[in-house]
């Protein structure tokens, strides 16, 4: 286990090296003045762009530039984002909780529901429930995230007047801004649903939850559909194996055979996928946050891309790489912990 952990952990710096090399390499296609924007810390500095080009050796050879960039990045300096009107790292830290909260409320229900539906469909293969699950899965798998999001906004929010758009109703946003200015409301975690509880403001938690329903539902439906398909086929594979027949022959009840024997093994591909799902989730978050007007990382990145705010996009890409790679490594380690066979491969 130790060698496996070390080997796996060593991949993190390697991945970061590769990603940063790609990003700095691509930056070379920009003119020096555009690259200089990555080192600007405030709006005033934009006036002295030539000095910045000199100071950061932006006209120097590639390896010098890469080294300066790495030094800056290690000091947490990723430049200034025009869109957020803040340094990139600061903006990232401010917006991360919004996206993390959405991902949190989408990820767990998605895992549970899709594992359950996938198992059910596999057990009752070709029965009515299987047909329904399969048709729904292929339908939601085919609906683009933005199409489903828009449909939910129009019908559920617009027509049925349920739930909400944005993070909170606007009157609550103003009230909270005033309250936090005088120290009556503290942002401990940045998760509004949690901060509401910690401050004893249940109305905030309730409102925040109501505003999370639609974006979370969008993510769950679109991404869960793929997971259901994988779970179903993985479970079918396991059900066809000899040990299942042995278990049945021993006279074990169906429940035990399905849930204790087959499903445990069928979950293995799901765990691998869960790491990758995290990456897909980030794709989905960019789109859902844009549609549902959540001021998180995704909305920021989408706006930054449209307005060619390069420092924001590059910083966002690198920090996302850190998160995704770390998540993948954690998943791998968990996976090796759960299933000893993995370690020896």
């Amino acid at each position, binding site marked *: 286990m130790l060698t496996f952990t070390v080997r796996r952990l060593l991949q993190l710096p390697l*991945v970061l090296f*590769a990603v940063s090399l790609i990003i700095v390499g691509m930056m070379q296609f920009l003119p020096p003045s555009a690259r200089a924007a990555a080192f600007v810390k405030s709006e005033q500095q934009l006036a002295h762009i030539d000095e910045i080009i000199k100071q950061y050796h932006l006209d120097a050879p590639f390896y010098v530039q890469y080294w300066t960039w790495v030094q800056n990045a290690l000091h947490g300096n990723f430049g200034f984002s025009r869109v957020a009107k803040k340094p990139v790292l600061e903006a990232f830290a401010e917006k991360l909780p919004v996206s993390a909260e959405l991902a949190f409320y989408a990820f767990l229900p998605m895992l549970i529901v899709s594992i359950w539906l996938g198992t059910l469909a596999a057990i009752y293969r070709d029965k009515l429930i299987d047909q329904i699950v399969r048709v729904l899965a292929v339908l939601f798998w*085919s609906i*683009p995230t933005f199409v489903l999001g828009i449909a939910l906004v129009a019908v559920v929010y617009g027509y049925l007047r349920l739930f909400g758009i944005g993070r909170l109703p606007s009157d609550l946003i103003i009230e909270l801004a005033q309250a936090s200015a005088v120290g009556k409301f503290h942002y401990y975690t940045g998760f509004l649903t949690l901060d509401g509880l910690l401050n004893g403001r249940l109305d905030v938690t309730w409102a925040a939850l109501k505003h999370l329903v639609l974006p979370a539902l969008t993510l769950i439906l679109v991404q869960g559909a793929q997971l259901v398909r994988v779970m179903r086929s993985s479970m079918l594979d396991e059900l066809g194996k000899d040990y299942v027949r042995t278990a049945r022959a021993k006279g074990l009840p169906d429940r035990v055979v399905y849930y204790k024997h087959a499903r445990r093994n069928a979950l293995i591909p799901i765990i691998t996928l869960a790491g990758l799902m995290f990456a897909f989730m980030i*794709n989905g978050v960019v789109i859902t946050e844009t549609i549902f007007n959540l001021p998180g990382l995704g909305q920021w990145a989408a706006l930054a891309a449209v307005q060619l*705010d390069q420092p924001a*996009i590059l910083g966002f*890409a690198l920090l*996302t790489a850190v998160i*995704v790679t770390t998540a993948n490594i954690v998943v791998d380690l968990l996976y090796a912990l759960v299933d000893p066979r993995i370690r020896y491969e």
Partner: protein
Amino acid sequence: MAELAAMKPQRESFWRSRVWKRFRRNPLALVGTAIVIFYVLVAIFAPALTADRMGRNCLRDLGLKRTEAARVLRNPLHPVFWRATVAPPKSCYRIPRKGYSPVPKPPSKKYPLGLAGGGYDIYYGLVWGTRTAFYVGILVVGIALLIGILIGGASGYIGGWVDNLLMRFTDVIYAFPGLVLVMVVVTIFGRSLTTIMLAIAVVGWPTYARMLRGNILKTKAQDYVDAARALGAGGLRIFFKHVLPNSIGPLIILASLDIGSIVLSVAALSFLGLGPGIGFADWGQMVNFARGWIVGPPGEPLKYWYTWVWPSLMIALFVLGWNLLGDAVRDALDPRS
């Protein structure tokens, strides 16, 4: 001698193969095929379908007058019909506008699917957008396949540290959220259809590289490869004559089925506003036009439904068709089923 002739491997006809039989018996496969064929037809006959509503520049570039357009473009005997169908001028991909009112107009007799904000004809945009979709899908799959074949081929065939290095690189790209990488490329190289296509191809090749590598490892161990080597064939000759052709078949089929998901990515980018220029016939952009009109004024929340329902349906059905087809082909190819 007669015995030897009888032993000659006989190629099974495709129409009698089990793969085809399995495919044909699957009802979902037929639905998928029908949907894809529908879109192919729409794409091919886009000029004829929109002959009565062509934009001014498109008509000029085709050398047609508005009064004769419908007659000429629906007449397969006329040379301009073929020109418009096979290689239409770029201006035909611009959606014609009826007025410049920012407010969408509901479906009418002349504009059966309505006008998007800015007076863009939704029907025209969707029909010509089908062409854009196929163009983008086919080209992106082609580029991604090329990169995948180069990297996966080198990785599997050469092996050793080359394999290790290339596969670790593949892992990095594979695990990275594709949309983010595409956004990086688009912000640096500027917004255009070409950039988007390149960016999506650059993100999409790892699956192909991995698959090809796996297939090559299997093929490399076959006796005929040893036989070729024993006969004195060089490394490159063995690769191109024996290993690659025997490893690439399923890859090409499966890759071509990715057209649906590629069109989906392009539509998502264009929905975010990173697509080709405004007014270019492209489904994602049609949805983007609708962004401000999803919820109507108080009292009539669904007033502008036509701005988003039609483009959404067009994209979702396209992707559904390819997904059904893809599922059916994978099932048919899978020896376990």
